[in-house]
């Protein structure tokens, strides 16, 4: 996926360069400016994740969200999913591994949903783009709906 993204960016860059050299340089300058603008928030996120990853291990996680853990487990899974930041192509193998080591479908449903939609550590970045109100509402709703996903999983699986 990232390779496709690079291909896209490179193709667009070449196309842009053919059309106008000045505009391409301007767009790269703008790209750098927007990156610089958001960098402190990103660094904060990275440090927070670093601290969390060094404290939590996958074994500890699957112990907490076993299939017998019920709604308490769902709640714990949702909290872990909300505060961690893992890309999809790592999240699914991880979720499958957690299932194999004894986690329940309901709990994994909550974990995967919050992982993708709720981002407590990315909140500073989200606030910067959407303002405090929209960011807080979006994350709370996403958290609430993750419980709905867990509920459906619990009934259906």
């Amino acid at each position, binding site marked *: *996926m*990232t390779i496709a*993204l690079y291909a*896209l*960016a*490179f193709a667009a*860059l070449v196309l*842009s360069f053919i059309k106008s050299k000045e505009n*391409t340089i301007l*767009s*790269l300058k*703008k*790209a*750098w400016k*927007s*990156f610089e603008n*958001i960098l402190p*928030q*990103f660094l*904060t*996120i*990275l*440090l927070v*994740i*670093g*601290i969390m*990853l*060094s*404290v939590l291990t996958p074994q500890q996680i699957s112990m907490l969200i076993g299939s017998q853990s019920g709604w308490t487990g769902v709640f714990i899974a949702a909290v872990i999913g909300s505060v961690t*930041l893992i*890309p*999809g192509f790592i999240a*699914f193998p991880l979720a*499958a591994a957690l*299932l194999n080591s004894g986690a329940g479908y309901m709990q994994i*449903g909550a974990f*995967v*949903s919050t992982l*993708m*939609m709720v*981002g407590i550590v*990315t909140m500073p*970045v*989200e606030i*910067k*783009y*959407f*303002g405090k*109100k*929209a960011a807080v509402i*979006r994350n709370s*709703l*996403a958290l609430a*709906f993750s419980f*709905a*996903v867990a509920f*459906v*999983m619990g009934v*259906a*699986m």
Partner: protein
Amino acid sequence: MKIFKKNIFLIIVLCLNLAALVLFPQTGIKSFEFTVKNFMNFLFMLTPVFICIGLMDVWIDRKAMIKLMGENSKSKGVLISFALGVVTAVPLYALLPIAGMLLKKGSKISNVLIFICSSASIRIPLLLFEVSYMGWKFTMIRFIVNFFIVFAIAIIIDKTLNEKDKKEIYDNAYKL
């Protein structure tokens, strides 16, 4: 002083990490290792994203964008936002700058929210990948439930934000 105040969270977290390094050297070192590793991943992921954003900023005509995803784009705008979202499989942190650019170009806030939420939860490029790990049933249930959730979130936020909030979001997007 202004820089200090602007980056207050960064400074706090950095101090925490340094404290961990002194008090629990093992955890502290591990934490910094993760941070460096993740920073590389972030840079790798974000470089093409920001290049695309820069190009969008220069080349995309605001008027055309307003027509596609703006205030009066109605169901066409919703459809475009949703389609754009589900084919974009980048993490939330990389989605946000793209969303900022869409706002800057005059897209309707609810449409940008549809884009973000659909992209965060439904990812067509990752669908088969999800099936291979989690099975068809899990994947399909998630897909269907999330479909409704995406629109529910976008509609609820759009109704909750008043005109002042929305104006602030647009003003802010223009500065970025």
